[in-house]
């Protein structure tokens, strides 16, 4: 049976056919669909039905939901993690005689790499999973269909606030993570030193730690403190909504989609981190070539 769209394909020029094939092959893979969803959500922010009041209310609610509810766990994890890193770095560098790289190591481990990643993991586990359960439940109850038949774009109504709010929350939480890892971690170690009578023989003062860390920070670090959480936040929320909205009307798919959203978020976050790290490597190469 000849269908209308077959005829449409025949009408395309050679260039058109190439672009059609390219576009279709990108849209067939999962990542392509997720990127499309991300841009649809972003562009829906500017659609006709925008209203500053409701949009900002939804986004602030989502930010609050993502950020505040994760805060206690994040704070404890960051503090303990920061304390461990400070102890390890101080003792190891002291033993090996590289005391002058304490600041560099702290910046690389806490601020540059593990801070954003651990924050993203915590948010993916807490907010990503709850977002996909929430949207998945709405899909099952055909609430998403109902939204569409009322002319309310589900992507705008459900995905957009989650995306923007989640990304803002990831950004704020990453800064809080790094700050509490260094600040509260320092206090924990001071407490340990007071209790154990300095059994580790650490010569740690806030002056020393803060000066070392601040002198080790480069411009690139400040840029990536902003970029990394934004990328991770987009990945978490887009992935969560994508997995949830792909559910057919079957209740057993909801836990599956939730698990998938968390695991895939972890995977994408690490992949994105590797890609972003390439910029650091380029920075290193520049510095090395300067020295040579």
């Amino acid at each position, binding site marked *: 049976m000849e269908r*209308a*769209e077959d005829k449409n394909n025949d009408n395309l020029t050679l260039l058109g056919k190439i672009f059609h094939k390219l576009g279709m092959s990108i849209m067939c893979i999962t990542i392509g669909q997720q990127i499309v969803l991300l841009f649809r959500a972003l562009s829906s922010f500017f659609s006709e039905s925008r209203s500053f009041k409701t949009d900002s209310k939804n986004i602030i609610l989502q930010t609050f939901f993502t950020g505040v509810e994760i805060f206690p766990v994040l704070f404890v994890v960051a503090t303990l993690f920061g304390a461990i890193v400070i102890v390890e770095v101080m003792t190891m560098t002291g033993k090996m005689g590289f005391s002058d790289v304490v600041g560099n190591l702290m910046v690389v481990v806490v601020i540059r790499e593990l801070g954003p990643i651990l924050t993203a993991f915590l948010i993916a586990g807490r907010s990503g999973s709850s977002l996909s359960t929430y949207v998945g439940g709405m899909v099952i109850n055909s609430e998403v*269909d109902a939204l*569409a*038949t009322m002319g309310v774009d589900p992507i705008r*109504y459900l995905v957009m606030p989650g995306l923007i709010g989640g990304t803002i929350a990831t950004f704020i939480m990453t800064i809080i993570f790094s700050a509490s890892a260094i600040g509260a971690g320092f206090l924990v170690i001071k407490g340990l030193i007071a209790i154990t009578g300095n059994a580790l023989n650490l010569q740690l003062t806030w002056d020393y730690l803060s000066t070392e860390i601040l002198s080790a920070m480069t411009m690139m670090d400040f840029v990536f403190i902003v970029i990394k959480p934004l990328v991770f936040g987009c990945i978490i929320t887009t992935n969560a909504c994508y997995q949830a909205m792909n559910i057919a009307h079957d209740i057993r798919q909801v836990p599956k989609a939730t698990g998938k959203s968390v695991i895939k978020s972890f995977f994408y976050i690490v992949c994105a981190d590797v890609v972003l790290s390439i910029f650091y490597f380029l920075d290193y190469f520049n510095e090395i070539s300067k020295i040579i």
Partner: protein
Amino acid sequence: MHNEALRIEDLHLSYSNLLGTVFSKPRALSFFLRNRDNDKELINGANLVLHRGETLCIGGPSGQGKSALLRVIAGLIRPNQGRLFYFGEYIPPERHSALEIAKRQVGLVFQNGALISNLRVRDNIALPLRYHKKGTPKEIDEKINMAMDLMRVRNEANMFPHQLSVGMQKRVAIARSWAMDPRLLLMDEPTAGLDNYNRRNLLPLIDNMRTLFKTSIIIITHDLMIAKELDCNISFLHNRTLTDPHSFNYWSSADNAISRELFRDLRVSG
């Protein structure tokens, strides 16, 4: 054609289409990459013409694809084949989506109501109005109150959907659709789950909408007495096609398979 609300020509629908639109996937994808092999067909060549202000009941045994047909008309399912005209305007298959059709003021009342479960009744009704910015906040409030009064859910305005009974949820869903001033209203089993009292209240409301607002209505129902009380035509999904619309009296007195099957009880009772 200018006085037509809906025209369906040669509609084909198969089981593989029933999954419906997935909103996370690009629309072009489902359009270009469709399942081409002809699997089991649910609807095979249905035709329907609905005039403005006309009410039509679609009946038939369950499992015949009545709800699927309604979802096709609302744009949630894209048919294999067939041409659909809304108010005389042809919607090509690449634009056949729920959002596009909702722009033409087509409303759908789901079988289970499908209220947004984390919003109160008032906000549920207000959601589409506020989203589409239909008037000032005061006008929207008035509209909501009117809709709630019509469906007698004013006392439950600040309740969540899970606190309401099924029948009440359905009334709220109808109020939500009504508040949008639809030109074509699709109702999936509006009276199932309603008690006799509310059923009797609902029918005059449908009648009012038909006469006052010139709303065209399609009702999917098992309750064939609705057609008699509303004095409208009935079509049946039979043998995978839609029969011609005829009045209740025609069907109850006709001598064919559908009448014998579905009107047996009604005939005995009179």
